[in-house]
């Protein structure tokens, strides 16, 4: 078997990304990806043992960067805490409910017993988001806009509320995509509920 090269690996990733984008994760096949990049099926499998692993490699890192950029926009010095949370919630949901992000998430859950994908997603995406949101809320509590509570718990509750209306529907494939207006109004209702619980009155 030939030695693996970085150039070949990148070529496979690029070809696979195109196929995934065009036909989606479910309908993409290793044969089609091989046809796109040329070479033998054995070579392809030598680099990536399964469609799942390949998909994860192609899609996950871009998504992780996207999520990080959204969380970093949370500004604790913003004048209007509600507006800030609302904006964050809407951007977060838009990123989480893109077809690729849904496929990644489903894969992470489905494969968590047999691979480390679940761990990668949890440590690379879930935890950093939680941490940033908790930090934002901690400052809000300190500044008096929010009542004092455990910011980590509050962050987990806010994130869970944001997904409360959509997560099951999407993971169970009841809807394949969510319209931006639906995402925005779900985010608004979640933020309002969160602030009725944590806002100062």
């Amino acid at each position, binding site marked *: 078997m030939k030695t693996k090269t970085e150039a070949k690996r990148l070529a496979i990733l690029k070809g696979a990304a195109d196929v995934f984008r065009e036909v989606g994760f*479910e309908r993409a096949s290793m044969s089609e990806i091989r046809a796109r990049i040329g070479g033998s099926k054995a070579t392809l499998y030598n680099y990536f043992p399964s469609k799942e692993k390949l998909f994860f490699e192609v899609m996950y890192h871009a998504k992780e960067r996207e999520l990080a950029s959204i969380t970093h926009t949370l500004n604790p010095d913003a004048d209007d805490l509600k507006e800030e949370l609302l904006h964050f919630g809407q951007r977060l949901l838009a990123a989480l409910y893109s077809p690729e992000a849904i496929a990644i998430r489903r894969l992470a859950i489905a494969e968590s017993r047999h691979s480390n994908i679940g761990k990668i997603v949890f440590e690379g995406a879930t935890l950093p988001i939680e941490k940033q949101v908790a930090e934002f809320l901690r400052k809000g509590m300190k500044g008096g806009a929010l009542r004092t509570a455990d910011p980590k718990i509050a962050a987990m509750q806010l994130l869970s*509320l944001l997904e409360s209306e959509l997560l099951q529907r999407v993971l169970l494939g009841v809807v394949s995509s969510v319209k931006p207006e639906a995402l925005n109004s779900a985010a608004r209702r979640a933020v309002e509920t969160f602030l009725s619980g944590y806002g100062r009155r």
Partner: protein
Amino acid sequence: MSKSDSKRQAILENAYRLFRAQGFDGTSMAHITSEVGGSKATLYSHFPSKEELFVECMMAALENYMSGTLQHLDASRTDLRLALLNFGSSVLNFVCSPEQLEVRRLIIAEAARSGTGKLFFDKISTLRAHVSAFLSACMASGTLRADDSNLAADHLGALLEAEILEPLLLHVRDVSPEAEEIALAVKRAVAAFLRAYAPAGRQRRPNVWRVPPPVEKESHSGGDQVCVGT
């Protein structure tokens, strides 16, 4: 149990075991037949497709659980906080059990295929409808502020799962939580929910939630039925 019922039960039990051990793709109707005994025709007379059999056996545990857990809402109608605490503990104990986590992973893995996800979602919606009806009664009596009760049910469910579910589902954490950890998570979730859905003007007194007695029973005469705590 009739002969046909016991056959059906044997099919469900064997299929459940095989699906959990080998996944949906790794399990064939032929294999299930050989485990149960009898003919493939008999198997198909009970379950017309592998998809339907999968949904049926994955749902069996949820069905049993639902009838039990919903009683918590009805049984503690005189004290909303207590009702939600009992209900919440029951929900989390169920969804955090290793068996249910594995079932959920399987369901999500299969959801995009063959419409099985929709069947599960319908089942979950039945549970939500019960919770929503309960919350709606609390809103009507003024124990909770008036709002969309379906939304309130979604928010309650999300708050209950907020601290615990994801690391388990992603297998970052292997050991299911002990009763104490669940109790603490439920307490915080219910506190957040009751604050968020408190009737106007009562947000500062989170310990006074009382549900009026069920309408079919004789009601107390006089006094404030909604708010009798301290």
